């Protein structure tokens, strides 16, 4: 066992972090919010070019040839930069046996992901080329639904939402087994995004706590602030370990070194603890910033809202709890 990231893994993560730090900042996020469906197509292609959507695809198929262990590192960085867009759906589509897969992998296409629902809430609809629809019985690939009513005020300004009474049936691309597999992968990637969001939130709050002075002292000196951030960071560290372990286990299961059920269980664990870590950290970030944390201007609320959005997607923590309960 050696659960520390390898040099290659560190390099992969560092490179992406650097790219995103240069490419996406406070203003860029706000600019993307104004684009149709809040997707920056140029950025999408750049991400595709870097292999973000094809991390786990074999090199023979034009992929990066790595595993879910590396995918968690990549999605952690995407979360940390709060990159808007249907990241999970596009990643999942790239791995399917469908025509669209190659363009999804390349970042040419955007693919949404939505559980069936009555009504259904579809994210990023105006920017979607296709929509993966998942329910217990199977997976379908559909045209973006027409007749959807956009929501005036989505919870997350970076996640526009439209409401549809009934999702199009689409073309079936897999049965219940594929649905379970996609849920598992979606759960892992969402958890990784949340670890990234939580990391960014604690970093932002720590930066503020190190410079904001109140009552003649830097507020990070006050135990009330220091301990709030320490508690948040504890949850982030635990969640990061769980997410990365789950990524490794999925790869081990794919290679036959591990039971598939054990790997799924590891993903359920990761999903649950990442959700809690994101909640704790993004809340703490707002609290540490005081009144300014409650404004639209700071990015603090974007982290919190995205974390809340991710909890309601395919492979939600609620699903994970049910699955884990069934395994106990």
């Amino acid at each position, binding site marked *: 066992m050696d659960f520390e990231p390898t040099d290659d893994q560190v390099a992969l993560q560092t490179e992406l972090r650097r790219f995103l730090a240069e490419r996406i900042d406070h203003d860029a996020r706000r600019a993307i919010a104004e684009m149709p469906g809040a997707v920056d197509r140029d950025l999408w292609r750049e991400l595709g070019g870097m292999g973000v959507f094809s991390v786990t695809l074999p090199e023979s198929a034009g992929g990066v040839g790595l595993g879910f262990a590396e995918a968690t590192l990549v999605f952690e960085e995407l979360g940390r930069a709060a990159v808007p867009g249907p990241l999970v759906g596009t990643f999942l589509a790239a791995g399917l046996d469908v025509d669209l897969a190659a363009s999804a992998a390349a970042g040419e296409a955007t693919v949404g992901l939505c*559980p069936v*629902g009555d*009504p*259904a*809430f579809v*994210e990023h609809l105006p920017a979607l080329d296709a929509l993966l629809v998942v329910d217990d019985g199977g997976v379908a690939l559909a045209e973006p639904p027409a007749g959807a*009513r*956009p*929501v*005036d*005020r*989505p*919870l*997350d300004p970076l*996640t526009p*939402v439209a*409401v549809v009474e009934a999702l199009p049936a689409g073309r079936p691309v897999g049965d219940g087994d594929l649905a379970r597999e996609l849920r598992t992968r979606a759960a892992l990637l969402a958890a990784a995004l949340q670890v990234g969001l939580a990391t960014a939130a604690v970093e932002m709050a720590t930066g503020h706590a190190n410079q*904001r002075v*109140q*009552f003649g002292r830097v507020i990070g000196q*006050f135990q*009330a*602030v220091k301990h709030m951030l320490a508690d948040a960071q504890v949850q982030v560290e635990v969640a990061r370990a769980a997410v990365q372990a789950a990524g490794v286990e999925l790869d081990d299961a794919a290679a036959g070194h591990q039971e598939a059920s054990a790997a799924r269980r590891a993903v359920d664990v990761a999903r649950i603890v990442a959700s809690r870590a994101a*909640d704790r950290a993004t*809340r703490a970030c*707002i*609290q540490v910033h*005081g*009144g*300014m*944390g*409650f*404004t*639209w*201007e700071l990015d*603090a*609320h974007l982290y*919190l*809202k995205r974390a*809340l*959005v991710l*909890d*309601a997607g395919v492979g939600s923590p*609620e699903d994970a709890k*049910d699955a884990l309960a069934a395994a106990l």
Partner: protein
Amino acid sequence: MRLRETPEEQAFRRELRLWLEETLPTLPPEPPFDDWEAKRAYDTGWQRRLYEAGYAGVSWPKEYGGRGATPSEELIFLEETERAGAPYVGCCFVSTLHAGPTIIAEGTPEQRARYLPPILRGDHVWCQGFSEPEAGSDLASLRTRAVRDGNHYVVTGQKIWTSHAQVADFCELLVRTDPDAPKHKGITWLIMPMDLPGIEVRPMRTLTGESEFSEMFLDEVRIPVENVVGAENDGWRVAMVTFGFERGTAFVSELLASKRLLADLVEIAKKTPWRGATAWDDAGIRDELVLIEAELEAQWALTKRNVSRAARHGTPGVGGSVFKLAYHETRERMGEVALRILGRARLALDDPTGVSARHLDHVHQRLYALSLSIAAGTAQIQRNIVGERLLGLPKDR
């Protein structure tokens, strides 16, 4: 310990209820989301109705045009108006609950004659210019400077969290008149007309998407010396007087609205499909809703204790801090369970499905609840207050 009402209190409640039943159906439609001109018109219109019916300044002394209600009667007033779905005090908050009472207590006869009647009639809207960006929780470290120039103060600086500033006529303003004195000793409380040159108001958007608050930039604003309330450099004490009007009722409307929200959430839970039954059949969700109900009810009992204490001793003591700490925690948990029940419907702050006009409330409230541990003294400051003043633990200084 008596919770029952006196005959006078019962009569007050009956009369008020009757008036609300007659009056509310005649009100204009509610103003659109985040339209502050419309909101001003709506709120001051309501204040005018209250004035005409004798309910304006319900807790103000009679000699200044108020109703002179006891704290118990004020509680009844808040309870009945909330129960009937009457408008909130809204834009008239600062004028009727802060500035007015301060001028009653500390103002000159001229100030009282000039400012109090229009407040009661709903003619004037006030805003509060206390907070500053650098000051934050350490309010007394405010830096906005006022330099005496003949019969005027020349005021320069920046305020923040000025609610309704864009529609206000006057501002209760704290400024530093003596930069060399210890921080609590060089502050003055001023009445600033909002139409003076040099005032720039920039609305701020909060994370709920609303613009109730503004930043206010003051550039050599000339305020007449006669606008000082209390004495020069005595403004910190005057500000504390303002806060001291709290009779345990500050959060009554909030708390009652939360109880209503919870009842609504229970209804939603009973209708929401969940794991083969309804969300209400999930013992985890049900227990959490029950717990929140118990906490809100217990906080209602605490409110009655605080109000009774204020009636006897003139102030609820640190009861307000105790309430706030308990309440914000409950409200945060209520927001969590609400989003859990709503599932994907949480993605929208408005509800284009028309299935429930209340979704808006619940998602909005989840976000709004984040302000409860920040505004009007962070939870950390409140814990210091409870630890030091109630338990007698030493200050960390």
